Each structure stands twice: as structure tokens, then as C-alpha cells.
């Protein structure tokens, strides 16, 4: 008791069991599956903006694979597709001034 009142630092050891771990990371996540690997018929094509725009934010930025769960290979293919689509004005570079 006396120790706690004196010390400014948080006494980690004093925490009870149910406090412990709660503010820490939770190993609770769902494994994301690459959509293009799951569905082999789904092709990445720069002309198919309906598919591609699902991987782009409203501002026109590409969604990281961390979020979408795409595998490295398909994320790479998607990158080129998005860049191609942008260059011929199928997708915006940015929505800041249009």
C-alpha cells in the first residue's frame, strides 16, 4: 500500500489477473483470404474497373493488402492494373480537384 502511494510509475506487478492482458493485444483475428486466389475466375484487368475499384478508396488511393488480405502476387497485379486504369482516365489519381 505504502509503496503504491509513493511511486509515480504504474506498478505492473500489482495488477489483478483479469486486468492483465486486457489492454494488451488480443490474438483475435480472422484470417483474410486473397479474393483472387479464392476465385480463380476473377481476373485482374485494368479495363474492369468494377472489380478494381473495390480495392481503391473513395479518394482514389489503393487499399493496402494488409486491409484487403490480397496475396503479394495479386496485390502486385492489382497495382499495375490500377496504374494503367489511372493513366487512361478510367480511375482517378485523386479526387481532390475533380
Amino acid at each position, binding site marked *: 500500500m505504502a509503496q503504491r502511494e509513493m511511486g509515480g510509475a504504474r506498478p505492473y506487478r500489482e495488477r489483478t489477473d483479469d486486468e492483465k492482458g486486457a489492454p494488451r493485444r488480443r490474438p483475435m483475428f480472422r484470417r483474410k483470404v486473397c479474393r483472387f486466389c479464392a476465385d480463380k475466375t476473377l481476373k485482374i484487368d485494368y479495363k474492369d474497373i468494377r472489380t478494381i475499384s473495390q480495392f481503391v478508396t473513395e479518394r482514389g488511393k489503393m487499399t493496402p493488402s494488409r486491409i484487403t488480405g490480397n496475396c503479394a502476387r495479386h496485390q502486385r497485379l492489382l497495382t499495375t492494373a490500377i496504374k494503367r486504369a*489511372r493513366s487512361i482516365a478510367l480511375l482517378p489519381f485523386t479526387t481532390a480537384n475533380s
Partner: protein
Amino acid sequence: MALYETLFVVHPEKGTRMKELIERFRKVVEGQEGTVAHVDEWGMRDLAYRIDKQAKGFYTLLQYNSSARAVEELERNLRLTDGILRYLTVRADEATQGQPVAKHPSEEHRAPAEGAEAKSEPRT
């Protein structure tokens, strides 16, 4: 010889000359011993951003079997033609194998991907 595809965007006011332009580019490819496999006119589409103060443009996709020389020649012609806002040439054989006919992105007729949540296309 390889399968190439060139997508080009024409100025909206040059839309009446579309047929003529397509015919001209077809001749360019054939002049280099290429064969035009498919021509897909997407028609007038909104541009994602303004080009030469235009918000719309005519999109046309040209697919052809040819040597690289024909691509060079076609791109040279595209640059010389005025009213061409953009063009993009891509080798189509490895990327879109087995489906030479491109999907029409402006149409809604395509069935939504099964299992995928319906997400609307972000419009600018």
C-alpha cells in the same frame, strides 16, 4: 507476333469521326502485316479526371495480332492524330489469356462477383 491491345480516348467533339478513325488505325495495323482481332467501341464515358478541359471521351479498344513494329506505327499515328486524349497499349496475350474479348466496364450487365459484397463504384 503477339496479341496487343490499344485503348484510346477520343475528344468528345470528334465523336462523329469515330468510324473513320477506327478504320484508319485498322489500316495502320494491317499495313504492318498485323491482323485486327477485335474492335470494341465503349462509346462515350466519363473521364475520371479532366483532360484538355474535357470531362468525357469516346473509348475504343483495339485488339490485334501483330509485331512490335505495328505497335510503334500505331502509337505514332495516335500521337499525330488530333483529338486523341489518351492511349494505352498493352500486350494482351499473357494477361488476359482465354478471354480476348474485353469486359465492358461501363455496362452493368456483368453479374456481380459471387460472394463478393456489392460495393458501389466510387464516383468522383
